[in-house]
């Protein structure tokens, strides 16, 4: 991705240099040629020239149109995480970054990831707006309180890279920095395996019971709330007929702001869990709801598997997937 971003960057640099140097040179030449001197005391009046006006409107328009489509295409790629991405939970707070890997391993201000594997960050903030920025991989996204943010990237070289908070967040904003450590696949697996935490899905499952979600959301239609199995990624019909895709952001909002969008056929009785669950717990609940697949009727099953291997965005894998070579994202 870095290469693709840089290509666009250098295209715009080229256009800019061309116009800056061109116009400055022309202006200097004109200034010298038509400087006031005894034989050039009176100017020749020229009121304008329509064809010229058209030309110098249309050419820039053409050039920026290219920039627009190029930039838009790139942005679209940056927004669409590949299917084989691995998920990592990120919570920002004044003034640190907390990361949780799919198997539950946690770290603070340092993020270990494997090389050549798309990584999808699911992010939330506990207080103010932060922004996760890794210049080396040209990746950046705001981390908002009260809503979930996603961004993905793929590290294409191993090493240690800066990680910055890029949105002003108070006193220690400039110390809300860290490192991204990119490792070879095996090294990463070894690093990951050394620690046995509780996976986000597993934590989510526990919360689902302890917070009482399970009392309303049953695995059959008998509950007071809709069945959550298999809803991730599906189109949901809301009260009033509007449709919405149940992506991460929607699931997050359903938990923190249930009244915002009411599923058709249900009463708005779900309480908000905003103050009751921490930012990270909400992200874990989202991870859990996403793991509920229609075929695996017993909800928790996928979570067990997730323990030993990174859970991919799409479906949990059971083995340490022999790193699928990156498709589009590589440079």
């Amino acid at each position, binding site marked *: 991705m870095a290469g693709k971003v840089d290509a666009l960057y250098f295209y715009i640099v080229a256009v800019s240099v061309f116009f800056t140097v061109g116009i400055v040179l022309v202006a200097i030449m004109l200034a010298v040629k038509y400087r006031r001197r005894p034989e050039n005391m*009176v100017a020749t009046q*020229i009121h304008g020239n329509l064809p010229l006006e058209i030309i110098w409107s249309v050419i820039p328009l053409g050039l920026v149109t290219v920039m627009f489509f190029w930039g*838009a295409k790139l942005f679209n790629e940056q927004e669409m995480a590949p299917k084989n991405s691995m998920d990592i939970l990120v919570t920002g707070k004044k003034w640190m970054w907390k990361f949780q890997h799919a198997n539950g391993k946690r770290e603070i201000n340092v993020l270990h990831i494997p090389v050549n594997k798309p990584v999808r960050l699911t992010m939330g903030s506990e207080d*103010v707006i932060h922004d996760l920025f890794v210049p080396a991989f040209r990746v950046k996204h705001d981390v908002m309180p009260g809503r979930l943010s996603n961004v993905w990237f793929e590290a294409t070289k191993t090493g240690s890279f800066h990680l*910055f908070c890029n949105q002003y967040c108070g*006193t220690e904003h400039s110390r809300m920095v860290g490192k991204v450590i990119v490792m070879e696949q095996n090294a990463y697996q070894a690093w990951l395996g050394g620690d046995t935490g509780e996976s986000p899905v597993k934590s989510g499952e526990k919360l689902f019971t302890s917070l009482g979600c399970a009392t309303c959301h049953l695995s059959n239609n008998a509950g007071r709330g809709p069945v959550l199995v298999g809803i991730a990624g599906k189109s949901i019909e809301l009260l009033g007929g509007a449709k919405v895709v149940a992506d991460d952001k929607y699931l997050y909002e359903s938990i923190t702001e249930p009244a915002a969008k009411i599923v058709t056929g249900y009463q708005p009785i779900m309480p908000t869990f905003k103050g009751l669950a921490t930012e990270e717990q909400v992200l874990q609940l989202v991870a859990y709801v996403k793991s509920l697949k229609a075929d695996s009727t017993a909800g928790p099953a996928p979570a067990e598997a997730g323990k030993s291997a990174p859970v991919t965005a799409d479906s949990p894998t059971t083995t340490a997937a022999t790193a699928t070579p990156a498709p589009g994202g590589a440079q």
Partner: protein
Amino acid sequence: METTMETNAAMPAESPLYNKRNYLNNGYSLRSWFLTVDHKRIALIYLASITFFFILGGFFAMLVRLELLTPKGDFMTSDGYNRAFTMHGIMMIFFFLIPSIPAVLGNFLVPLQIGAKDLAFPKINLLSWYMYIGGGALALFAMINGGIDTTWRFYTPYSTGHASGYVVTTILGLFLMGFSSIFTGLNFIVTIHKMRAPGLTWFRLPLFIWAMYATSLIQILGTPVVAITLSLAAVEKGLKIGIFDPAYGGDPILFQHLFWFYSHPAVYIMILPAMGIISEVISCFSRKVVFGYSFVAISSMMIAVIGFFVWGHHMFLTGQSQFAGLIFAALSFLVAIPSAVKTFNWTATLYKGSISFEAPMLYVFGFLGVFLIGGLTGLFFPALGLDRHLHDTYFVVAHFHYIMVGGAIMGYMAGLHFWWPKMFGKKYPEGLAQAGAVATFIGFNLTFFPQFILGYMGMPRHYHEYVPEFQFLHILSTAGASVLAIGYLIPAICFGWSLLFGEPTGPNPWNAKGLEWEKSLSPPPTENFSEIPVVTEEAYNYPDAEATVVTRS
């Protein structure tokens, strides 16, 4: 500019060079200044006030640049640094740049250029200064009591739920200042519609008037929105009512929408007037009509209008919908076109001119250089995929300083030097002033060009401490800032010298076209014109080498 004024030769020798009965000596009491309704006197008290805030803003800039000499925060605490750059932004943007050209040169020139005795609402004009200074006093009060660290953007929920200090007081100050801006805009719009001299049709207006008109539109349509937005933030902070803070059920992105709805167009409040000045000065010092006059005039209006629909380009990475992002990006690219058109037309104006290089014109050349860079680097952000990398880095800092410091201040300086003889009837030392223009240009570029590179390397904004590999460029930048400071000091010396020792210039030292030069004296009398002028010709009707008769009627 009118039939009675036949020759374009220098002023007749017998005309008294210094106008003895002028607005400056029409009363010396404090009352005669602070309760004046003369637009020219109000312009001067604005000049004094904004200069004060400029110095203050500059002081904070200096603190910031000194701190950034080293990667570690060894000069100030983090809180001190955060407050310094916040105060720098607030003082410079709200209390210097936004009022600068409109309130000083606009106030002085709008009636003079359209052949009116004053603005439409002289008392509201005075009131607007009181609003401004009241707002400034509140902001100063907050500053003296420790200042605030919200950045000039007041992003929620930080500003409402987390920041300490006199945030609400500062916001109140900005609210007042906003009304001063609205009143000025209102006054200009009515004046330009209703008080133009006979014969002065829209397409005979000086381009500075077009620019002021476009600016005024933004001021009256945009400022109320930011005033309301900031008030809502103050309400949220004071009363803990959830509007923008998700902790109380509010929406932080809503704040950003509302804030940028004003604050993007506000950039045009700063740069459009400067563009107007560039047109005036380049025409006078090339002794030529501005090439493509109507395109330059209309492009100001297009910038003002399209400029209202691009605010979302500050929010591509907030999670705003991708569709919204696309629309904002497309419109942001579109708004570049009228600026490009202006630049091309200015350059073409030089063609076959008779060009001289006094200080105002040097500032114009400086403006062209930095505005090109500032404008073109604006294209990097609506290229969505690239904004991902550059957003909120030093690349942005460099970009908007090129527009707002490079562009707007160079334009302001060009205008001040150009109209100084009109305002005070006295010469400034030309050679020294030219040196000032050159120093400003060099200092400016040395300060801000390295910041583009820093941004591309990944240096985020608002950083008190940074990683060591960025240090070299920061040192360059700070070095440039000291040259820039000299560049600003020189005009101050020139103007001070001029007030004390300057020789009288006569009504039209540049031999320029325009009612203020041709029909009024220097300094102008309180009533501006002895009789209401009648306009019978186009703007910038300079003599034509190819015409047999030197002047047309």
